[in-house]
């Protein structure tokens, strides 16, 4: 919480200092500790190289960006014609781990719409894909734009007698189906 205020204080100090140095008269004025002319040659070289190395390292880190983290995408396989809520429960003891294919987690949802896995939940930036499956054949489900069939995606954690349970949920169906089930949910409460 102190970081924003520290940043502001330093920024104000640097702005004032650099403005004073930029606009002050330099002719005939003796150098002082607050307005030095130059530093020693050895210090110049060592610090100059260090700062340049830091600048290059930072450029590299920022260029890589937070999106390149180790988060993997998931491919959700949903039973053909399934409509309703899908729930994936993570870190369930005794459940099988999620298989991987082509660098993606394969999340094959059973007919009841609830999958248990011992794998951990993935956080961060990833591009997930959704498919209907019927036997070996699959076809993709739109998850954005017109004709979107994936709604209300959420992550959560419940705590009960068996400990904490991490889960992910989303709704499969048309916009009308999603809205109507939301109303039904509200009226049932």
């Amino acid at each position, binding site marked *: 919480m102190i*970081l*924003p205020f*520290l*940043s*502001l204080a*330093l*920024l104000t*100090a*640097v*702005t004032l*200092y*650099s*403005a004073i*140095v*930029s606009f002050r008269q*330099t002719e005939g004025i003796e150098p002082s*500790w*607050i*307005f*030095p*002319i*130059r*530093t*020693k040659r050895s*210090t*110049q070289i060592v*610090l*100059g190289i260090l*700062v*340049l190395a*830091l*600048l290059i390292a*930072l*450029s590299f880190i*920022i260029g890589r960006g*937070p*999106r390149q*983290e180790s988060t993997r995408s998931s491919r959700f396989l949903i039973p053909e014609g399934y409509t309703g809520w899908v729930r994936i429960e993570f870190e369930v003891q005794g459940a099988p781990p999620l298989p991987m294919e082509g660098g993606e987690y394969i999340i094959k949802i059973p007919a009841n719409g609830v999958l248990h896995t011992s794998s951990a939940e993935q*956080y*961060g*930036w990833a591009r997930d894909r959704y498919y209907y499956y019927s036997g070996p054949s699959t076809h993709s489900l739109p998850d954005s734009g017109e004709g979107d069939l994936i709604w209300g995606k959420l992550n959560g954690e419940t705590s009960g007698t068996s400990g904490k349970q991490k889960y992910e949920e989303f709704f499969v169906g048309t916009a009308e189906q999603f809205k109507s089930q939301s109303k039904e949910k509200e009226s049932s409460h």
Partner: protein
Amino acid sequence: MPIYFDMLPFFLYFVAAVITGFHVYSLLALTVYGVPFNPLEVVSLLGSMVLLLAACISLFRPYAAARVALIACLLIWSFYGPATANLVRTRFQRHKVVATNCGDEWDATSSKHR
């Protein structure tokens, strides 16, 4: 004169660049969790990097470095300026009373405590 006194501009620019850069980068990293992306954060981050460059230049040419640092500060303020204005506005904004405890100490229409 001790050696570290010669390097006042360097330390000032360097520390400010690192602190503001780290702060803005941590805000930018939140976009992966769905926080809306603010382009001014990128401008500010660029400013922090220019300030780091100014720290480097200040070892050789302090007056030229001051001008570079001033430009960097303007870039950084492009994010901190509006953010500070928003912070001040919300801090001093009077909140209207939504519900009151009628008959006790609280007024029904004003947020002032009697």
